[in-house]
């Protein structure tokens, strides 16, 4: 079965996650060899995921961890046993 571009787009996410069936994967790779549009879509999607996952893109607020543990310490000092209601 030869895949057309629309079929390939349907599988892009699973292809990136390496969770498509081996047979479908082969078909996609065959298509990508000669389709510059689908190759560019795949490359751009991968690149975008890589950039968004970088810790600099969604950084936690400065001092977040300190404030969180301070609050937790305060909670603990008011409730010495976590198993008590």
């Amino acid at each position, binding site marked *: 079965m030869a895949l057309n571009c629309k079929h390939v787009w349907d599988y892009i996410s699973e292809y990136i996650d390496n969770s498509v069936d081996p047979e479908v994967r082969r078909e996609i790779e065959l298509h990508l060899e000669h389709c510059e549009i689908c190759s*560019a879509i795949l490359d751009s*999607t991968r690149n975008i995921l890589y950039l968004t996952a970088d810790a600099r893109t969604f950084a936690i607020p400065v001092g977040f961890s300190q404030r969180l543990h301070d609050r937790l310490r305060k909670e603990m000092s008011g409730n010495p046993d976590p198993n008590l209601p």
Partner: protein
Amino acid sequence: MDEGKEVQSRAAATSDNPREASLIARIRNGEQELFHDLIRPYERQVFLAAFAILANEAEAEDAAQEAVIKAFRNLKSFRGESKFSTWLLSIALNEARSRLRKSKRFPSESLEEKLDSYEGDFTPAMLTDWREIPSETLERAELRATLQSAVDQLPPIYREVFTLRDLDELNVEDTASVLGVSTNVVKVRLHRARMMLQKRLAPALKDTFTPRRNWFGRAIWR
């Protein structure tokens, strides 16, 4: 769940992370200060999960703190049937959703119901070539803002799945467990989220952040 299966799944969840199981046991036996160590690996995930719902740093921080406090107070009810991380993230999402409802920033009707049947345009942006944007470019605040804004603009059910899978790096099964949906729903929503991001971001990034070559073959950024 029958008792045999429950014992099996509890064993499976705790054997995934024996250090964590041991920490939880010690906290329950009175060493409550170890709760700091238990949650430390998940601070970023908890914040991002809350941020996915609230889209506001200060509110997400408050919700994340409250979720951690609730997890501490209710650790006795954590029975180890799921991973501690998925249990903690479920609390964070519930806390953030509850705050969003109270803030009345959105109508009370279910956004999920509306969007699950949403037949939006999930076709990607057409390009004929893509020159990779290297991660060093993230030093530019403008690029970070472009990426953040595109994620913020995803409809909530897609933003949640995208955050858990691609930012918090949970696997499909754990994402499904946190959200209380099937793995198939996770895969469909994730695919749509990624395609929406590609459609929005690829043309914008290509125009603004693709390096040009000067006469000496060096990359120059516009």
